[in-house]
């Protein structure tokens, strides 16, 4: 769909563990960790709709914040997107805990659009919080 002249898709965002994220979780200040957590996986159709190529960046916007990450194609149902758990995901998930202490890390409505903005480094991201 077009929102304000820009192609965007609305997805339900899931965040969670991956092997690569886990393998670098004790080396968070390294390039490997950065690569492991700074992307979003999109369904092939959604990916095409946004006119993306592998390595392109997207801006992810939710009611709770926004973040720029790399876009990847993955085997996902249309309308579902996945960001590995970590500081990029945490910019946009719902901090409300509904009295349980647990934020809602999975199942957040998000708007995805292609962007030329850079993906911040871990340190830059922290600065911006």
């Amino acid at each position, binding site marked *: 769909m077009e929102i304000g002249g820009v192609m965007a898709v609305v997805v339900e965002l899931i965040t*969670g563990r991956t*092997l690569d994220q*886990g393998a670098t979780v004790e*080396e968070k*200040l390294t390039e490997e960790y950065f690569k492991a957590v700074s992307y979003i996986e999109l369904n092939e159709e959604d990916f095409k709709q946004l006119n993306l190529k592998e390595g392109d960046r997207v801006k992810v916007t939710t009611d709770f914040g926004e973040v720029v990450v790399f876009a990847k194609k993955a085997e996902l149902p249309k309308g*579902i997107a996945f960001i590995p758990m970590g500081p990029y995901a945490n910019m946009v998930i719902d901090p409300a805990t509904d009295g*349980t*202490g647990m934020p809602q890390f999975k199942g957040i409505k998000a708007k995805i659009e292609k962007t030329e903005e850079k993906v911040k480094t871990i340190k830059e991201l922290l600065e911006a919080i």
Partner: protein
Amino acid sequence: MQDIVCTFCGSVCDDGEYDLKKKSVKKFCKLGSSKFAEKERIKAPMIDGKEVSYEEAIDKAVEILVNAKRPLLYGWASTANEAIRLGVILAEKLGGVYDQCASVCHAPGTLATIEEGIPGGTLGSVKNRADVVVFWGSNPMEAHPRHGMRYSISAKGLLVKDRKQRKVIVVDVRPTKTAKIADIFIQIKPGYDYAIFSALRAIISGNADAVPSEVGGVAKEKLIELADIMKNAKYGAILYGLGVTQSRGRDRNVENAIKLVQLLNRTTRWIIWPMRGHYNVVGAGEVPAWEVGYQYAIDFSRGYPRFSPAEFSAVEVLKRRDCDAALIVASDPVAHFPRIAVQHLKRIPVIQIDPYPNMTTLVAKIVIPSAVYGIEAEGTAYRMDCIPLRLKKIIETNYWTDEKILEEMLRRVEKFKG
């Protein structure tokens, strides 16, 4: 060295082989191997980026903590019980808040246990008896890579002698790596676990008419099929993960799953258990339970423990700016907490105890490097099913253990408090 105990995920595999010359481990998965690989360490204790001695760092840390009105002591999931116990006692002495990683992970399971109890079993029971295993909102192939081969998928046991004798079902919102190797994959819509558990309960208790033609993106026929498999299992296990605890409904999802298991036990045998993430997150909850009565979100400001997840969990305390100092042990909340909680960690003085530099290190005023349990230090950890395992000391180090650092902190705090 043989039979090394892994200190990464909740599987706590204890069959590793450590090569002292190569300083690496064999048999463990990618996660375990990374744990035992050499990586950048925090070189020395630091105050405001300046290297100091352990004693100086601890002195300053204690000064901050005793002068704080309400310090938050958080983390604990990746350290040994001996250290956790000191952390709990420290929080009590300081009148602060104790919270641990389960708070943003499996704590909803604890809330469900409070509502319903937990009908469970150890991993050996799954390996030996389970002819049906359902991974619900859990992706062990990425989060617990050797779980399947050791306990739950291809593991052979007393009654289940072959992979073919076990049916593995994955229920998830997307085709995960685990879904790929399952016998049945059921894709559901995010946030509909609760409804599906209700539908299964209705079908199994003979009330299938109450179930509409589709629930959470799953056709009724498919749900009936799943219910049949569950009813006809000789011994089934639901192993659930963050898909259930971190989605809409959180603890209520787990509660409903437990009620399903209660129902199933009336005609056959089923257990349900959470797929705990860290190697000793169970200890981080069990130790405070026996010391002060609760597993997490504990406030000591009145001189006695009070439990309230809505008020005293770390995310809530940080969101509401209800703490004025933080001691972070064996954890990285700056990387794993929502942005608004991290904002407060940037405001208050943070003391970090950890072997490795991480994002919390970037905001910490005082950083105290510690030895790595399971490699450089010995201690006790509880596997995801609560089986205790002794972590081994394989190599010598000059780094202090978390236990020693906390002991020194406690000593100073006790002296200060009189």
